């Protein structure tokens, strides 16, 4: 691996960038997923329709297209906006970090919406009725009975969505964010070992997705420990 000497620190910083995008996109996706699921379950037809459009569009459009739309589109919008105040400004770039994190967050948020909605509906109605019969108020029913069971039902998909976010971060190299795939491209222009470099990138991603898989697996064991029945 001495061929890559001198590039390891670049890979390291690239990885930090990947992790930052992951964290920001995950936060956005969870927030949008909760909002989207609430909207889909609400009594308002308008909210339900909006959430439906959101999930259809962001689950149907290619990730790359959404990313490009955000990167170039937001730059245009920002420029237009800033020029309202200062016409001398020529062009404003939206940092690829934010364009990428927001785009991935929006995409995966659409999937989270469906996951959270399904988990909400997946909780056995009988358990909700039992809690109401015990005179728990709606808020207590939600937090003590529904949420813990939703968590268990949502976890497997939630884990898959985290893997999607992690893998989608590779797309951001296309709009110029200096994450690990971008580092590999740069390094290749110097050392000309594309196979070695891209396989290195793949291995770094594999390590990240393995960690996510293991963590989610542990969480699932915890969430399901009450199901280890002896029946």
């Amino acid at each position: 691996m001495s061929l890559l000497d001198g590039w390891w620190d670049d890979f390291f910083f690239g990885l930090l960038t990947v992790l930052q995008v992951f964290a920001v996109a995950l936060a956005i996706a969870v927030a949008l997923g909760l909002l989207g699921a609430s909207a889909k379950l609400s009594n308002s037809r308008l909210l339900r329709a909006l959430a439906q459009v959101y999930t259809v569009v962001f689950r149907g459009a290619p990730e790359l297209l959404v990313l490009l739309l955000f990167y170039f589109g937001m730059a245009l919008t920002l420029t237009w906006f800033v020029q309202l105040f200062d016409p001398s400004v020529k062009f404003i770039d939206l940092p690829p970090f934010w364009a990428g994190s927001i785009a991935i967050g929006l995409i995966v948020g659409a999937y989270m919406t469906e996951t959270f909605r399904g988990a909400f509906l997946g909780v056995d109605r009988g358990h909700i009725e039992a809690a109401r019969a015990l005179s728990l108020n709606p808020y207590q029913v939600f937090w003590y009975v529904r949420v813990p069971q939703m968590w268990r039902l949502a976890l497997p998909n939630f884990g898959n969505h985290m893997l999607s976010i992690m893998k989608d971060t590779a797309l951001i190299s296309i709009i110029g964010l200096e994450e690990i795939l971008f580092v590999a491209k740069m390094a290749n222009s110097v050392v000309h070992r594309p196979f070695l470099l891209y396989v290195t990138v793949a291995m770094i991603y594999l390590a990240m997705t393995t960690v996510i898989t293991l963590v989610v697996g542990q969480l699932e064991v915890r969430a399901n420990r009450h199901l280890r029945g002896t029946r």
Partner: protein
Amino acid sequence: MSFDFALIATSLPKILQGLGLTLNLLVVSTLLGLLLAVGILLMRLSQHAWLVWPAKAYIYFFRGTPLLVQLFIIYYGLPQFGLLRHSFLWPLLREPYWCSVIALALNTAAYVSEILRGGVLGVDKGLIEAGKALGLTKFQRASRITTPLAVRLALPAYSNEIVSMLKSTALASTVTLMEMTGVARTIVADTFAPYEIFIAATIIYLVLVWFIQTAFTLIEGYANRHVRKG
């Protein structure tokens, strides 16, 4: 800033010039991927560790790494090896089209084999026992009971995988292919109207997704006609 609806309309036909290649990539890589997936599934379900482990490793690698990186390894990485450049594979690996097809097929095979395995494991054990009790051979049980039921169980997840493949074909634009996203990107470079052009492209993709989902709804309805209630 102005939003030009007319531009959406005029760019639609241009983007549609990439439709053929998008569909071509989708169909060819989906079919190759399915063949490969069945092979991996059989290895994964076999009793021999030396078949099971390679299958597991394959699935682990292709599901654990980004498709874009896989594509780059194949398109940019493999030509690094002189051996390959002189082999019969070279005419394929030189072509961005075949590199994209190979990457897409290898990638989807990992997912599809797991989807099919889920279907196989989901088949009620009681039905297989009933088959045994009736004296069906192992092969008869596999072909008459397990396979048809597993395919039915796997259909919904498989339709999602096809949609996901459609979206993945957009990555071929990163290795110079002019499928729909590639065409859209060139138009944006000319007009610098990202909203209109990319939204136009998105609309076409959404229509295709709708077609795929409708087709699978019909197929599922047909496959499950035995459970439809009177």
